[in-house]
């Protein structure tokens, strides 16, 4: 068991996979000589050389499409989006091309590719640099969407994503790159589609992913003081979604709060809420509640940004509400 940062765990996953399979290459802005804008690809250029670790021009649509074309003829690209805010420029290639190629071609052309990069707000980066994309990309048949909330999950899930034969959207977070955690020294993979129970509890189910898991855990700790036992579950892969894990937890606690860095709008959380009320209708003792961002573009000022994101002071009252403690 070594203690790695989230960034190191992701870097290790890429290094191991690239050593295993020469068809894998990494392309993106600053990934090579600069070792990555966030240093996730640190050392990969030295290890694998400029043919396999490539600095791209600032052409998100172009190099997303380049990756798709390369994947169609047998390579296995990892495309880094410096952040997913810029990945929106690649949406045409991701949504219209990567996701549909296998189906459009009647099953002839697989597109084994990973699009990875940080997603969501960092700190005081304002409206154009603070967006999440899972709400949009989980809507697209043909795409898989993967998240992780700690180094071990990031490592195991990125390896599985790289080995998957479909386009995988792998969502990271600037706020997590420095997070430390134990990662088994032995190589191991975490299958896509299997969620993880981060904390057991019988009173209420908290559903969260990426950096919201830490917030959910913080709220759980705090409420434990008051004798409230929260079950914290992380679906990890949002497409495919481990619905059984979710339903089972709901059948146990009968109460749910979803915490996500999205909006009170169509989102992965709203979809999960819909599924729960549909499948567990008679099991629910309270409506499925959700704590999300305020429905505003992200403001810059620290006090305003803090007010927009789901913070414990906004989450805890909602948890108490589904427990009818308010």
């Amino acid at each position, binding site marked *: 068991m070594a203690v790695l940062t989230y960034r190191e765990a992701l870097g290790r996953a890429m290094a191991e996979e690239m050593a295993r399979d020469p068809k894998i290459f990494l392309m993106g802005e600053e990934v090579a000589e600069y070792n990555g804008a966030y240093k996730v690809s640190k050392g990969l250029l030295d290890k694998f050389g400029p043919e396999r670790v490539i600095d791209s021009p600032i052409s998100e649509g172009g190099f997303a499409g380049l990756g798709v074309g*390369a994947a169609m003829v047998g390579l296995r690209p990892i495309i880094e989006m410096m952040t997913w805010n810029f990945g929106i420029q690649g949406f045409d290639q991701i949504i219209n091309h990567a996701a549909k190629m296998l189906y459009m071609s009647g099953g002839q052309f697989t597109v084994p590719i990973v699009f990875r990069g940080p997603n969501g707000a960092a700190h005081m980066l304002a409206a154009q640099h603070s967006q999440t994309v899972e709400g949009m990309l989980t809507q697209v048949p043909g795409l898989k969407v993967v998240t992780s909330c700690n180094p071990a999950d990031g490592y195991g899930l990125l390896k599985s994503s790289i080995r998957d034969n479909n386009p995988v959207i792998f969502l990271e977070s600037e706020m997590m790159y420095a997070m430390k955690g134990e990662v088994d020294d032995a190589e191991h993979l975490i299958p896509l589609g299997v969620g993880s129970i981060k904390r057991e509890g019988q009173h209420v189910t908290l559903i969260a992913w990426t950096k919201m898991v830490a917030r959910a855990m913080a709220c759980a700790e705090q409420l434990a003081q008051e004798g409230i036992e929260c079950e914290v579950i992380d679906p990890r892969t949002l497409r495919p979604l481990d619905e059984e894990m979710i339903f089972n937890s709901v059948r146990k606690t009968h109460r749910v709060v979803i915490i996500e860095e999205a909006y009170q709008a169509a989102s992965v959380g709203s979809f999960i809420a819909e599924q729960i009320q549909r499948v567990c209708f008679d099991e629910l003792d309270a409506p499925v509640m959700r704590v999300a961002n305020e429905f505003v573009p992200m403001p810059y000022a620290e006090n305003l940004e803090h007010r927009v994101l789901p913070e414990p002071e906004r989450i805890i009252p909602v948890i108490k509400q589904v427990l009818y403690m308010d």
Partner: protein
Amino acid sequence: MSPKDHVLGKTGAPKSELPKGNGKSSAAKNSQDKAWLLNVYEEMCYFRRFEERVLQAYTKQKFAGFCHVHIGQEGLCVGVQRALRPTDYMITGYRSHTQAIAKGIAGREVFAELFGKATGCAKGNGGSMHMFSKEKRFLGGHGIVGGQVPLASGVGFAIKYEKKDDIIVCYLGDAAVNQGQFHEALNMAATWNLPCLFIIENNRYGMGTDIKRTTSIDHLWKRALAFDMDHGQVDAMNVVKTYEFVSDVVENMRKTNRPYLLDAICYRYKGHSVSDPGLYRSKEEMAQWMVKDPIIQLGEHLKKSKFATDEELKALDTKGKERARADEDWADEQPPPPDEQVWQNVYAD
């Protein structure tokens, strides 16, 4: 521009170190060979007749959706194909029927795809805009204008990555040169020396819009200047010229690995798609072009060279007609895809 401007050289375009299609190349041998020329003639007739049947079938409502045909542009499709190896790759836009056949897909499988049949070259999932064959290295058939261009750069990247000497031909329409993706893809191909032959099917119109109204340049090959990319222009109404020119370009590309932008001047006789009456073009303009018809031009050449008589040419055309009918007849007999297919191939294992 009037057809006269289209002959090579008059453009002042191709950079000096570029192939001139001057007939001195190995390709020239073929293009003086009778059998080869007759075969080219037959294929162009077949493609013309194939697309005519496609239009009839659409009018008879034997299929629906969009339908874009290549009638008038056969010279480019055939001339380019003859300059390639089977291992070369090809990718194109939504106007893809005859290019797919040229690359080796059976015409009947293209017809079956149009009819949405299980045995179509995309199993009925793709339709007119999305012909595919992995075996023949035909990478589609794409519906988003310009979307295929970055994909082509990716294939070029893979060819270089695998140290092969194949190339990829990427067809795009004249109106696609206004797409940002086109620009990004050409920049990457030029910066990294990817073996991509980008061919602008320059039929001068994007739907009803003369390309002059949406670009500021007189010649589309100028787009290459932004990237110091090798480039040239060819009279694609002349299949022999096209074949020779592209042969030289490709030969050169295999040595240098450098990408190339070809402005291929051609003309579509029909509307953009079946729903387009094409009122934006004058009878005079159409007539001007039809005298340059690729099939007629080659026919005249064959007769002048005493390679064929009118009767023999007629016979080749009839053969093409029959092949096209056979394709459609076969497609008629094919079964539709089974309902389960809806849920297949969304994800690969």
